[in-house]
Structures are given as structure tokens and as C-alpha cells.
């Protein structure tokens, strides 16, 4: 009997194991994801002696299976018998760390890093560190790139002799023949530097950093910029000038725009890492150059950092630096030839107003905002509009409203529907900033016009916009300004517009409340149940279902129910379907 019991519990596991080699990838993947179940059933001994050897050889599989396997093995320590046996997981992960697919390799390295912490110091030297060495001296660059990510996890926990070996291996990989390995080493340089003793940072890392930063391959040099941030953070301030700055200056003026782009992209991090003094002396001129770079990609990346850079300037000289050094460059960027540059600037320029304060904003920034609001590129205008709140806090939006209005109107009527969609999404924000009066006077008609746009996505967004406006301005405002217009559309000859009425009601009923919904909206909906277009009729059914919860039970029973019952006998099957659905959802049967 015991045997028969065993069979029952073994069967699902047997299926899982068999499916590890099923022809269907999905089933293999499924089994790999349940690897812990299999291991649990096999027990720690058989997992170590049978399952892991099998998995080690299974590297021929599809990437997604290997990826899942690499991930699973990172959480396998208990299943092989705990930290004492964790080194048994190294062989399969080692073979996964050499496959050509980067995502799989990276995941294998991630899991190796994870289980490295579960190794005892002895096991780390006996099992883990030799694996790192094997990978580091492997024939193929895939294994050498993987090794780069493992040095930093074992370095802090090994003896000083082994530490010296690890440093030597890392040095070797930094001057590897293949750019891939040098890239991998460059990208791990900062991380490795963090675990090194300061003396070795100065002696080893700096020379490696300098070498990588002047590599013949652009793709290697640009990664050294990233390392620069971590290295600068580690060094005492007085060493920065001699050890880091020459390389950073060189990177900021590199012949390759990709390297300069990287400097621009990492500018805020660099600024924090080198501190206020170097920023004042070196980074300010470097930043000016990047803002004037000949390559638009670089200017755009730098423009993106304008606000952050200014914000992080030392307080004592912030205003002077901005006014005399940064602002002149910013002014030029406003009329840049490249729209991506202008649009990058537009997304941050408003932020300068909080830094510079009211007077400077009015005198220096406002003309720039106004110029950007009139820019030929819609994205630039949109970016300005989307950041209006920053200015509002400093000078109030009224200063802008004269120029704002034409810009909004133009965007609202842009030929590209995506642009119209974008401006609609800012309407609730604008309404909040500009206040109800201004809104009613100038923008309300736009919001209504979008309801009859010829693109469905715009009509849909316009409906949603109305709901947000009502949430902002309240039910009374809705009743006076928009509800009559929405309901008026119920008589429109175009059935799409009539449906828009229904969609608006769906969106507005809750925000407007029971009174308005019952007294004003419901009659219109009910009347539309006689529409000649079936699409309108079944949307009536859907609307009734939607607004039902807002109505009182009397209205539901006496008004809604008969109409839905009638619709439930409609000739059109869709109308019937939705009417019946509404009846059952509203429990009117």
C-alpha cells in the first residue's frame, strides 16, 4: 500500500521531470520554473548528484529556458543542502555564464553574485574564486565578460594573496584584446573600486581608469565616464584634481560625440561626485561647452540637465554663475536649429524660475518662455505648458496667460491628433492654474469642440477631460456650463456625436451626483433608446447600466426598467445582449 501511495505523489513530479526535455518550449519553461518542486521531491542528495549535472549540460536550450534556469539557481541554496553545499550550484551557473545571449549571462552572473554571499570564506577561496579565475582566463570573451561582474563580490572576503590575484585578473581584463571584455571591465570599474582599499584605488584603479578612458574604442571610453562618478566619490577631495580631473576634462572634449553625450548625460552625478569647488572651476565651463556642442544629441542631453545642474550649484555663487554663464547659453538654445534640443530645454527651463526668484524670472526667463510658447514645434510648446506649475508658484500664471492662450488654441487645433491628445491631457492642470473664470471665458469652448473631433481617441480623451474638470470645479459648475451642451448633442444628426453624449454621461454621472443625473441626464438617455441607429441603442443600455448605481431605486424601477425591457426585445442582437446584461447587473429582473 505504501508503494501505491508513493506513486500518487510521485506522478506530478515525474511529469515535471519528463517535461524538462519536452519538445514544447513552453512545457520545458514551465518545468524549469518549478525546479524547486522537483528538487524538493528528489531531496538534497539526488539534487546535487543527478539534477545539477543534468542542468549543467542543458545549455543547448532556448534563451528563455536558460534565463529561467539561471534565475532559479540563484535561489537554490537550501535545495542542495544549505550553505555547506552551495558550491554545487557553481558548475551549471558557470556554463550559463558563457552562453552568447547577454540576458542569460547577466542573469547567471546575478545569481552567482547572490550565492557568493552564501559561501563560507573557505569555500569562497576553494570553490568560488577558482571559478572566477577560470572565467577570467577563458578562451571566449563571453566567459571573460561574465568574470568582470564577479570580482567585486569575492574581493572583500578573501585573503590578501588572493586579493592580489584578483586585482591582477581585473587588470588583465581591462586590457583585453576584445572591446566587449574591455567594455564589461569598464562598466564594472566603479563597482570594483568601491570594494578596494583606498591605496589600491589610487595605485591600480586610477591607471586602469585612465587607460580605459583613452581606449581606441569609443564604446569603451564612454563607459569610463560612468566609472568616473564612482571613483570620484571614493577619493578624498584633494586627490581629485590630480587623479580624476585630467581624464574627465579630456572626456568632456572627446572627439567622439558619443563620449561627450555620456558626459552630458551623467553631468549631475559628476557634479555631485566632484564637489562644489571643482564644479565652479571646471564643470561650469565644461557645461557651457556641452550646451554649445556641435552635435545636437549632445546639446539635447546637456539641455536636459540645465535645471539639475543649476539647482546643485553652491548656494553662495549660484545666482551669479547662472546669470553670467549658463543663461546666455540657454538663450541660444531657445532658438536652436534642432527641435529635440529645444524640446529638451523646454521640459526643464521652467524649473529655473524657482531657483532664480521672481524678479529674475520676469526679466530674463519670461521672454524665453514666451518664445518657446510660440515655437514652431508642438512638442516644445507642450513641454512648456506641461510645466506651468513651476512658474505659477513664482510669478503667477497671469504673466503668461496672454501668450498661453494662443499657444493652447493652436495646439488644440493641431493637425496631428497626438498633439491634440497631449494638450487635452494638460487641460485639468491648466484649469487648476488658471481658475474657473479664465477657463470659462477662454478654454471651455475648446473642451467642447474636442467632443466632436473626428478622431475617436480625441473624443474619448475629451470625455475623460470633462470628468476631471467637474471633479475640479464641482457639480454646480457642470450643471451650468457643460451639461446643457453635452445633452444638446443628443439631437445631433451624426450618430457618433449622439454616442458621445452617452459616453460623457457615463463619465460625468458620478461626479455630478444623483440629482443632476436623475433630473437632467436620465431623460435624455431614455429618449435615445428610440434612436434609429442600433449602436446608439445598445450604448443606451450600457449607459443605463453605468449610471444605474447613481440613480435612486424609484427611478430605476419606474423609468429605467421598462426601457431596458423594451430594448431586451430589440431586433438587434447586440442591443438585446447589452440590455439583458444591464438588467441582470442592476438586478431589475
Amino acid at each position, binding site marked *: 500500500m505504501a508503494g501505491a501511495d508513493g506513486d500518487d505523489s510521485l506522478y506530478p513530479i515525474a511529469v515535471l521531470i519528463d517535461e524538462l526535455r519536452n519538445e514544447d518550449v513552453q512545457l520545458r519553461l514551465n518545468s524549469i520554473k518549478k525546479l524547486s518542486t522537483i528538487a524538493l521531491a528528489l531531496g538534497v542528495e539526488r539534487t546535487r548528484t543527478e539534477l545539477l549535472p543534468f542542468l549543467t549540460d*542543458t545549455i543547448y536550450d532556448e534563451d528563455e529556458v536558460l534565463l529561467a534556469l539561471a534565475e532559479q539557481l540563484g535561489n537554490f541554496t537550501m535545495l542542495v543542502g544549505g550553505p555547506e553545499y552551495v558550491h554545487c550550484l557553481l558548475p551549471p551557473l558557470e556554463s550559463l555564464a558563457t*552562453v552568447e545571449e547577454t540576458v542569460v549571462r547577466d542573469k547567471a552572473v546575478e545569481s552567482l553574485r547572490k550565492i557568493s554571499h552564501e559561501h563560507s570564506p573557505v569555500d569562497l577561496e576553494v570553490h568560488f574564486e577558482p571559478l572566477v579565475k577560470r572565467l577570467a582566463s577563458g578562451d571566449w570573451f563571453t566567459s571573460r565578460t561574465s568574470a568582470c561582474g564577479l570580482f567585486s563580490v569575492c574581493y572583500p572576503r578573501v585573503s590578501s594573496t588572493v586579493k592580489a590575484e584578483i586585482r591582477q585578473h581585473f587588470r588583465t581584463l581591462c586590457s583585453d584584446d*576584445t572591446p566587449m571584455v574591455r567594455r564589461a571591465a569598464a562598466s564594472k570599474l566603479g563597482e570594483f573600486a568601491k570594494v578596494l582599499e583606498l591605496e589600491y584605488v589610487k595605485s591600480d584603479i586610477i591607471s586602469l581608469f585612465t587607460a580605459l578612458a583613452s581606449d*581606441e574604442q569609443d564604446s569603451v571610453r564612454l563607459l569610463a565616464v560612468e566609472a568616473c562618478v564612482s571613483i570620484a566619490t571614493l577619493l578624498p577631495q584633494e586627490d581629485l584634481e590630480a587623479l580624476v580631473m585630467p581624464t574627465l576634462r579630456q572626456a568632456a572634449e572627446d572627439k567622439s*560625440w558619443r563620449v561627450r553625450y555620456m558626459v552630458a548625460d551623467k553631468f549631475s552625478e559628476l557634479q555631485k561626485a566632484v564637489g562644489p569647488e571643482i564644479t565652479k572651476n571646471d564643470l561650469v565651463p565644461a557645461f557651457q561647452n556641452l550646451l554649445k556642442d556641435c552635435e545636437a544629441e549632445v546639446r539635447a542631453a546637456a539641455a536636459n540637465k540645465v535645471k539639475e545642474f543649476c539647482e546643485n550649484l553652491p548656494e553662495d555663487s549660484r545666482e551669479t554663475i547662472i546669470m553670467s554663464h549658463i543663461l546666455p547659453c540657454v538663450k541660444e538654445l531657445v532658438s536652436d536649429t534642432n527641435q529635440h534640443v529645444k524640446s529638451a530645454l523646454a521640459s526643464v527651463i521652467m524649473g529655473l524660475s524657482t531657483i532664480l526668484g521672481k524678479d529674475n524670472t520676469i526679466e530674463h526667463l519670461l521672454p524665453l518662455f514666451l518664445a518657446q510658447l510660440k515655437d514652431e514645434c508642438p512638442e516644445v510648446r507642450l513641454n512648456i505648458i506641461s510645466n506651468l506649475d513651476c512658474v505659477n508658484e513664482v510669478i503667477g500664471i497671469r504673466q503668461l496667460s496672454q501668450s498661453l492662450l494662443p499657444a493652447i488654441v493652436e495646439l488644440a487645433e493641431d493637425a496631428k491628433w497626438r498633439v491634440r491628445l497631449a494638450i487635452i491631457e494638460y487641460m485639468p492642470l491648466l484649469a487648476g492654474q488658471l481658475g474657473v473664470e479664465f477657463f470659462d471665458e477662454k478654454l471651455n469652448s475648446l473642451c467642447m469642440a474636442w467632443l466632436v473631433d473626428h478622431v475617436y481617441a480625441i473624443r474619448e480623451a475629451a470625455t475623460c477631460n470633462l470628468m476631471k474638470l467637474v471633479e475640479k470645479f464641482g457639480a454646480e459648475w457642470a450643471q451650468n456650463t457643460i451639461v446643457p451642451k453635452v445633452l444638446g448633442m443628443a439631437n445631433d444628426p451624426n450618430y457618433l456625436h449622439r454616442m458621445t453624449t452617452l459616453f460623457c454621461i457615463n463619465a460625468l454621472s458620478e461626479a455630478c451626483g444623483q440629482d443632476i443625473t436623475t433630473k437632467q441626464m436620465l431623460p435624455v438617455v431614455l429618449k435615445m433608446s428610440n434612436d434609429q441607429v442600433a449602436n446608439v441603442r445598445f450604448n443606451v443600455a450600457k449607459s443605463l447600466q453605468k449610471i444605474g448605481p447613481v440613480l435612486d431605486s424609484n427611478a430605476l424601477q419606474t423609468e429605467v426598467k421598462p426601457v431596458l425591457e423594451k430594448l431586451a426585445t430589440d431586433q438587434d442582437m447586440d442591443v438585446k445582449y447589452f440590455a439583458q446584461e444591464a438588467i441582470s447587473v442592476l438586478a431589475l429582473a
Partner: protein
Amino acid sequence: MHHPVKLGANDVQWCFSQVKGAIDDDVAEADIISTVEFNHSGELLATGDKGGRVVIFQQEQETKGQPHSRGEYNVYSTFQSHEPEFDYLKSLEIEEKINKIRWLPQKNAAQFLLSTNDKTIKLWKISERDKRPEGYNLKEEDGRYRDPSTVTTLRVPVFRPMDLMVEASPRRVFANAHTYHINSISVNSDYETYLSADDLRINLWHLEITDRSFNIVDIKPANMEELTEVITAAEFHPNQCNTLVYSSSKGTIRLCDMRAAALCDKHSKLFEEPEDPSNRSFFSEIISSISDVKFSHNGRYMMTRDYLSVKIWDLNMENRPVETYQVHEYLRSKLCSLYENDCIFDKFECCWNGNDSVVMTGSYNNFFRMFERGHRRDLTLEASRESSKPRAVLKPRKVCAGGKRKKDEISVDSLDFNKKILHTAWHPQDNIIAVATTNNLYIFQDKMN
């Protein structure tokens, strides 16, 4: 060193090694070879054909008993790289023909290559498998199911050795980036990007990203009526990751520096030889169109092939080539008939030997030419069935350009223009060459004593 490498066309006695492909005179269109390429070690040789297939040959390991016989190339893997397609939006048929193959530098035990037809580039992995799993719980190895009640213990499959299997699997498909026909692909020395060029544009791809590429060169005029020139070939510099060149139908080569700007619309160098007014004719522009451009291995020079000549340019000198070799100057008087039979539009490729001292390119009548650079010596050889006896030394051929025909010379009028050698490849280190006639691949090597 088993065999001292002698690299000079005239020091080398070329002998026949192998011929691949059907012996039939009746050539199936699909079997026509459209590209030939050695990998970086020379151990593998790939061909692509009009039928969209890629055939990879592997050099056998040297046998100990015969130290002087270098390994022959045998079929390693054959796979269908591209299928014919139809673009329904543009009502265009897309041929399956493989336009180019480029090997990637080896990254692990597997081999990778890029193959392209007119529109789509694919990354292929060619890998070996010599183990397979054995052992199921619920069925026998032959697939018969076991009675589940007989399963009393769990069985984990084990890998057992099996006969070597070579698999080719598509790893990436880079599609939808070219409006015109792709003529070149080239892997960058950073090993992570490559370019693809069509008639009017060059795109830059990351080898791991298929859903976007960057357009770095675009010569399409706003008004297509004003189109006067197309891109005919493009290649990355072998070790400067930022340098690429592209050639045009007007006989110019532009060198771009990708460091300068994201868009390479402005070239940094323009290589162009002033036209010789005495040779000017109706065909001048057609025959000056460049059909292939190749950097030398050391990256100092580049070679271009136009209809009648091969030119070698020093990258530091833009106004004229440093060397010009006439491939078949005797055809100059035949251009009219070559125009009528469309041969004048044939796209001959060219290649360098391992140490850049000799260049090779094809001609008509299944002739191919080698030019030894330092010595200004040249050689005409023929790929033919007649001389395809093992280790038979190839006899130099000579075409009689006019006047009295000497013995052993072939008259220009008797050249067969249907037999052309467009694609050739030179082993990256050794004196082994692969020469594609219409549907046959000939492998020649230097005679070793």
C-alpha cells in the same frame, strides 16, 4: 611551422584542391552562388546562393601522416536562410537570394554569421551538439507510455554522448529598415554594432537589438527625379570603430567619421580620381561605378573595384589611387556589346590576401586575376573542370588583346561572357582561395613541396 607562408602571386604555384556543386551543365537558378566568405580563422567557409540557402564548409584537421596536405573543406552545415516573400503593401516580390554573408568574431564555442537578402538581415548561430538527454519517468525512450503505477522512484534524465550534430538556428531578424535593396553589411570593430547599406541609405544596428536601427547616411534627394547617384557598397574600417566608407555609382568613395556627428551626411574624406578625358565615352559613368570596396587587413588602404580595374587607395590620399590594376582592359573596345547584353552592369567583388600583398578579383570566361602589389606582377587563372585534377597546378592564362594571337593565348572574341567570376574569397592567413563560378565553388591552394 609546417608550411612557410609564401605570399606572392608568382612565388605561389596555385593548384586545384576541390570543387563543390553539381557537375551538370544545366544550372538551376537557385544554385547560383551569390556570395562567398571565410570566417576569421579561415576554418569555415560560407556560401550563399540565389535559392536563399547558406552552405558552410569546414576545413578538416590536418592528418598526421600527411603533414603537407592541408585539410579539405567539407560540408559542415546547410540551412535555408531566407525564403521568397511578397510585400503586399508595395506589391513587390522579395527574392530569397543571399546578397552578403558576414561572420561575427567568435564569442564562444558556437559560430555566428549575418546573412542578408534585399530587405532582411538575419543573425544565425551555428553550433555543435554531441550529447542528448536520455531517460523518462513515464515513457520509454521510444515514446511508448509506461503504466504510471509502475513508477516507484523518480528518474532524472542524463546526458549521453551522441553523433555530432551541427545546428543552425536563427537568433535575430533585423527587418523593415530598408526601402531599397541591401547591398552591403559590415560588422564594426566594436563587435556590438554593424551597418547595412542599400541604394540610398546606410543604417546602423546594434547586434542585440532588432526593433530599431539608426539611419546614419541618407543620400535620397527630396525629389527622386534629381537622383544621380546611388550607394553601391559600404564597409567599416577593420580597427577604427568610428570610420566607415561607402562607394557610389559615380566612382567616388566617401569616408565618414562617426565621432563627428550622429548623422554622417557630411563625409570627412572624398576619394575620387579625375577622369581621363581621352577615355571619355558614353560608357564612362557606367564603368566607373564601384561594385565593391574592401579595407586592407591593416586598415591603411582600401581597394575598390570598378568595371575594368581595381584601385588601391591610401586612406591619407584622396585625389588619386596609389595603385591601379587593369583587370580586363581588352574589354574597353567591347563595351557596346557588353552594354547590350547587360554584362556591363555585373558587380565584381574583390579581396585581399592575408597580409595585404596580393589582391584578387574575377573576370569573364571563368578567369580570375591576382595582382601582386609590391612587384606589379599579375596573374590570370581559370576555374574550370578541365584542370580539376587533385593537386594539378593551374596554368596561367593570357588573353590576346589584338594583333597576332600567340600559342596558348585566348582571343577576346572567344571569351564566354556567361561564365563570370563575381565572388571570390581569400583565406585570412593561408594561401587558400575560394572562387565561385556560376554554381560551382572552386577551392585552390598553393602547391606545397
